[in-house]
């Protein structure tokens, strides 16, 4: 009985790793499409969002089956409830990669008012956060999960730097306003991806300690 349960928990972990890899790819591809103004790649990211949604449903279904069949307690209960919380944030990250791609298509025929510099850095930072938060879950690595939470400051600082740049560009020429607004929106999507990675990491900490944001859940 227990060995079947362990196999199913392993399957759950593998599914989360797979979903994590799909969303990392979505962020990476959306960023590259943005940098190169590649409409085709941006469309592929939007279309691939359905795969992420399907993966979320598949993992959700597996978690519900485990709750029903195994009536888990202790670390099993924490692991499965954490997975259920994580996939909601992971699915939202997929949506945000698609949202970035939508704006990428909108801006594809315009010359950028500024060379994209901080946005690729934000993308790199958020991909790292997503990867590490899921790694922390699989390896039950508390220090790594805490590092993800800390690392969000890097993303927030980049967001503020972009905001400052764009305000300066609008001050210099009000004609920049339209694109500046879209670029600000894109930066906001990356910043939200960082927040979702923090949410994932905080649930990983719960799965290890039983505490969510230093509060005992039960």
């Amino acid at each position, binding site marked *: *009985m*227990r060995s079947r*349960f362990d196999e199913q928990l392993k399957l759950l972990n593998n599914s989360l790793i797979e979903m994590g890899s799909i969303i990392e790819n979505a962020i990476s591809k959306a960023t590259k499409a943005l940098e190169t103004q590649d409409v085709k790649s941006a469309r592929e990211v939007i279309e691939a969002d359905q795969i992420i949604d399907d993966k979320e449903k598949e993992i959700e279904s597996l978690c519900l089956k485990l709750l029903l069949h195994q*009536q*888990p*307690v*202790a*670390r*099993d*209960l*924490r692991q499965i409830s954490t997975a259920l919380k994580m996939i909601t944030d992971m699915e939202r990250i997929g949506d945000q990669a698609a949202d970035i791609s939508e704006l990428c298509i909108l801006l594809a025929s315009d010359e950028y008012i500024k060379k994209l510099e901080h946005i690729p850095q934000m993308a790199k930072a958020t991909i790292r956060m997503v990867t590490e938060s899921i790694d922390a879950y699989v390896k039950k690595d508390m220090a790594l999960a805490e590092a993800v939470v800390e690392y969000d400051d890097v993303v927030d600082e980049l967001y503020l730097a972009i905001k400052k740049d764009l305000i300066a560009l609008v001050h210099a020429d009000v004609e920049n306003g339209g694109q500046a607004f879209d670029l600000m929106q894109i930066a906001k999507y990356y910043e939200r991806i960082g927040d979702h990675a923090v949410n994932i990491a905080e649930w990983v900490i719960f799965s290890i*300690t*039983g505490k969510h944001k230093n509060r*005992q*859940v*039960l």
Partner: protein
Amino acid sequence: MKCFEIEKLNLHYGDFHALKNICMNIEKENITSFIGPSGCGKSSLLKTLNRMNDIAEGCRISGDVKLFGEDVYGDMDVNMLRKRVGMVFQKPNPFPMSVYDNIAFGPRTHGIKSKYELDKIVEKALQDAAIWNELKDRLKKSALGLSGGQQQRLCIARAMAVSPEILLMDEPTSALDPISTGKIEELLLHLKEAYSIIIVTHNMQQAARISDKTAFFLFGQVIEYSETESMFTMPRDKRTEDYITGRFG
């Protein structure tokens, strides 16, 4: 408030050391679950609380068990102790007599003879056990004709008819179907407002559903004793974790 204070309790059955230095307090008006693998000492401790072990051959007990501050193994009259600390067993064991006489049996042995008073006690006990509506027209019928679930609730009513302060329950639902189990669990949650309940169960989900505190026993020792929700989400001891998640036992 504590109903039981247990201090350095050791119990031997001949050479077998069944309970090892148990120290725990049990809260009043609470449901406390004892869990653990077979032979770990949980039923032995339960029976120690109303001295059911006294008649077990070769049984030796040392240490303190206090009921609301009174020494259970001191001068306390055993009949009075068992009136205050009732017990319900795994298998329903109605007496081969009518429903009414089953409930009235205890009060009669404690000297109540008035029919009016006995009628009142029988009705109240059956109502408290949430079985009055099912049995009010069958009071004179044999209790042996009831279903297993009804028999067990009758036994709970019988235990309550002598107005105990505490109910000890040794796997009270393990022989019952899920509907009857659900009814008894609902009943226990209702009863804990007035009684202190201590239940031995092999059903982890039952312990998680109904009890306020849970004690995990292993090889005659209490390994962990804590708030139930905390034990079932974040047990402190690896042995508890391994047992409740089915990794051993």
